[in-house]
């Protein structure tokens, strides 16, 4: 079926030496040797991306610039998957809200079908693009670490919402000295136990991206690196993620295009 997406993928294959350029081109795509044929179709529809690549639309507020959508964005960028990164102003929310499954964002549209809940969206994409772990147990471990980050995100909400600046400072200090400090000790222990430089198995998973997003993009930016002084393995992990080419490219672009981060 020719639709808007596939129309953009119509190409004409040309090969000067072949009587049937389209066929040799098509066979080259399929990995076969070029050959002769009597057919004369001139235009070949092909999808140069994976022919099963869905159309992804990620919808979230334009502020916070990262917020609950950033983990999905990091996964998609790391995996090199195209998606529409839709950010709408809060003024448009009353019109958009009723169309979401549960009156919340982010939502991910996958070929028009809608998925809600930030961690569900991230897990779905991570599993689809090889960032979830190599077997059921590793996938569960990655889920566990992502849940930790979800708890830490929720724990940061009360100080974030506090309007009195003196009280807010106090709450953040307590948060860093207790909640964060305690967790850093425990995660350092897990990293030492796993001994691969990654949280799960011996390769990057969305768990590492989640820890990077929280500990570097959020905490390091806001509070500096002092809280990592006794956590060399966690520091090495977030530096490793920071330096990944796709992550580096995305964050540099993002920070210049959306400069005010929360």
């Amino acid at each position, binding site marked *: 079926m020719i639709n808007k997406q596939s129309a953009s993928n119509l190409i004409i294959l040309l090969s000067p030496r072949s009587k049937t350029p389209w066929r040799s081109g098509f066979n080259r795509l399929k990995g076969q040797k070029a050959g002769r044929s009597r057919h004369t179709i001139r235009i070949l529809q092909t999808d140069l991306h994976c022919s099963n690549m869905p159309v992804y639309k990620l919808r979230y507020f334009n502020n916070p610039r990262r917020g609950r959508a950033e983990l999905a964005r990091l996964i998609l960028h790391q995996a090199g998957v195209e998606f529409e990164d839709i950010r709408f102003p809060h003024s448009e929310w009353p019109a958009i809200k009723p169309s979401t499954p549960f*009156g919340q964002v982010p939502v991910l549209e996958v070929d028009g079908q809608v998925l809600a809940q930030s961690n569900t969206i991230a897990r779905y994409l991570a599993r689809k693009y090889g960032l979830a772990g190599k077997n059921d147990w590793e996938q569960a471990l990655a889920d566990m670490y992502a849940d930790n980050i979800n708890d830490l995100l929720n724990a940061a909400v009360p100080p974030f919402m506090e309007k009195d600046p003196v009280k807010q400072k106090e709450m953040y200090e307590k948060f860093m000295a207790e909640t964060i400090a305690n967790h850093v000790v425990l995660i350092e222990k897990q990293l030492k136990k796993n001994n691969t430089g990654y949280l799960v198995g011996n390769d990057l998973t969305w768990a590492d991206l989640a820890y990077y997003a929280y500990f570097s993009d959020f905490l390091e930016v806001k509070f500096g690196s002092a809280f990592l002084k006794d956590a060399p393995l966690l520091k090495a992990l977030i530096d490793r993620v920071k330096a990944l080419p796709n992550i580096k490219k995305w964050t540099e672009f993002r920070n210049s295009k959306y400069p005010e981060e929360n």
Partner: protein
Amino acid sequence: MVHYKLIYFNLRGRAELARLVLQHQEIVFEDFRFEREEWPKYKAGTPFGQVPVLEVDGEPLAQSNTIARYLARQHGLAGQNDWEQSQADMYVDCIHDLIGGTRPIIYETDKDKQKEMFQKFLQDVVNPHLQKVEQQLIKNGSGFLVGKSITWADLAYYSFFSPMMERLGEAILDITPHLKKLVAHVGNIPQIKKYVETRPKTAL
């Protein structure tokens, strides 16, 4: 056969969904419960200073939803394909948010204020959510939240709303007849019914 040890307080709380998954699939497991005073004894042995923890042949897994999802996936209650599994994840995340919303209410010591907070929670958070879920149930058309058969998502909704109905009366789900029917259906599944009748009676 793999040995499961589920470690938690002697409460339903954050372990109940995992217990329901195991009970529904009739998987034998060690339902290890301790009293609140004993917590300091067990805390240091957990990966992140929290319970529930599931030990799978001695290897620990933390985080209540991760545990329940792992068990659901291992034992056929997670959904029939990637998309259904994500739909189920989504619903369970919704229940997780609702449970989170009850925390400040549970910890409120002023009884009048607590009652007020709970009413506000029902009105502003639970009821709007119920209406959305009802729409999704009608749209799905099978009586279940995901696909054509029971998943851990249905157990999660049962686990959250059944005790609430017991405490506040069944009428709280009158605005969502399909969800009410689903909760009743889950409650009547023989292995669930038997488990609920025989499990320790705890406040939470």
